[in-house]
């Protein structure tokens, strides 16, 4: 039974962050300008960055609690993390990448079957025995998603995974991803600063600015009613030229 992800975290050294929000099962978009603390928030949830103070829980499980000095290490949290850079292992084939995070109690055959099914679902079965160096942007993206989902995660975190793709590919991938996430039904945080992506994927939006939660609500409440999609997307820096 999936539980809510509840995040209350403060970071005081270097980057200043102070966030407090809950993520129910389903997709919540973490929205905000560059430097607003979106990626840092994900890193804190995953356990890659230790907050100065706070409490992070998933359902009944406590992942971090500065009050009682609990800090479950990254590898025991079971978060599926899709990095902006994707971080596919360059020395492993697509199948080995996908199998990396699977339960090691499974035998090799079961792992292989599961990897094949995941690659199939993301329509990259033909890449199974190839290494990431030869993948196109969209292909690498699909393998990264398959790998993240192979771990039977409790929480899924996606850090602007589509930022490097052109619009057409992005739309196609968003549709595939939406179907998988719907099926998975775990708390999912999707970081983006694209309104269009937020509208396609998100059920809820948490808006960050300057390291603080500015607003929480439905997509319409936070981002306003859908306007002409062309207007929504075009001025928002589709090529990423304005980002640092």
């Amino acid at each position, binding site marked *: 039974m999936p539980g809510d992800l509840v995040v209350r975290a403060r970071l005081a050294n270097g980057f200043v962050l102070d966030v407090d929000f809950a993520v129910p099962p389903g997709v919540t978009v973490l929205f905000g300008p560059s430097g607003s603390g979106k990626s840092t928030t994900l890193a804190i949830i995953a356990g*890659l960055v230790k907050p100065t103070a706070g409490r992070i829980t998933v359902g009944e499980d406590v992942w971090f609690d500065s009050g009682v000095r609990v800090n479950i290490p990254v590898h025991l949290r079971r978060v599926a*993390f899709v990095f902006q850079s994707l971080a596919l292992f360059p020395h492993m084939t697509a199948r080995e990448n996908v199998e990396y995070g699977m339960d090691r109690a499974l035998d090799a055959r079961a792992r292989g079957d599961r990897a094949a099914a995941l690659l199939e679902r993301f329509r990259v079965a033909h890449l199974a025995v190839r290494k990431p160096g030869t993948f196109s942007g969209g292909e690498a993206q699909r393998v990264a998603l398959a790998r993240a989902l192979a771990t039977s995660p409790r929480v899924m975190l996606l850090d602007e995974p589509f930022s490097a793709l052109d619009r057409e590919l992005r739309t196609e991938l968003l549709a595939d991803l939406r179907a998988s996430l719907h099926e998975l039904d775990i708390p999912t945080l999707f970081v983006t600063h694209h309104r269009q992506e937020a509208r396609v994927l998100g059920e809820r939006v948490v808006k960050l600015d300057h390291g603080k939660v500015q607003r929480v609500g439905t997509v319409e409440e936070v981002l306003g009613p859908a306007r002409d999609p062309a207007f929504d997307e075009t001025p928002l820096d589709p090529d990423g030229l304005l980002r640092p």
Partner: protein
Amino acid sequence: MELAPLALSLQIASIATLLAAVLGIGFATLLANVRFPGRDLVDVVVTAPMVLPPTVLGYYLLVALGRRSGIGHAFEAIFGTSIVFTRTGAVVAATVGALPLVVKSGRAALEGVEPNLVRAARTLGAGPVRAFATVQLPLAARGIVAALMLAFARSLGDFGITLMVAGDIPHETQTASLAIYDAIQEHRDGAALGMVLMLTAVAIAILYGVNKLTAARDAR
């Protein structure tokens, strides 16, 4: 041509490279991945042999490992032979000379691995040891192998530290570098030239191999 000093050099350099590999990769990993107090000091101490005069290093080793030192005494009690002025001493000398190369290059190779790859491994359920062994180490392997080849070349050519710690005992600690010096002193120019050419060939072959390895890494 005198083959005994060359054979001895190869034997000593092989063992020294093995020791420098184990110690050096250990230090490189520690320095690259773990934040601990005194890290900079460890870095300086481990790389000091690169800049200290061989005689100074040799002096320290004599004091630390000599028959009257704690370590030297314990070693002799266990193995029945002293460290200094034996083949063991020659291995220690070559290891100390090679260690900084392994630590410096090994650390650079490990730190050169994209940090997000290690983080990705961790989020996929790998503990720190598994993430190191399956992601960071394999991706740094070329750099580390190149470092070990340089370490071997360095061990093969050591002169000063070996002379200080192990002396120049024929068939025991007289490595090729020392034998060349002796041959020149004794006007056996032919013998010297033979060993000079052999050592040069080995060193050039190793450098060629290292360049090949690192070029392949840059191209990737």
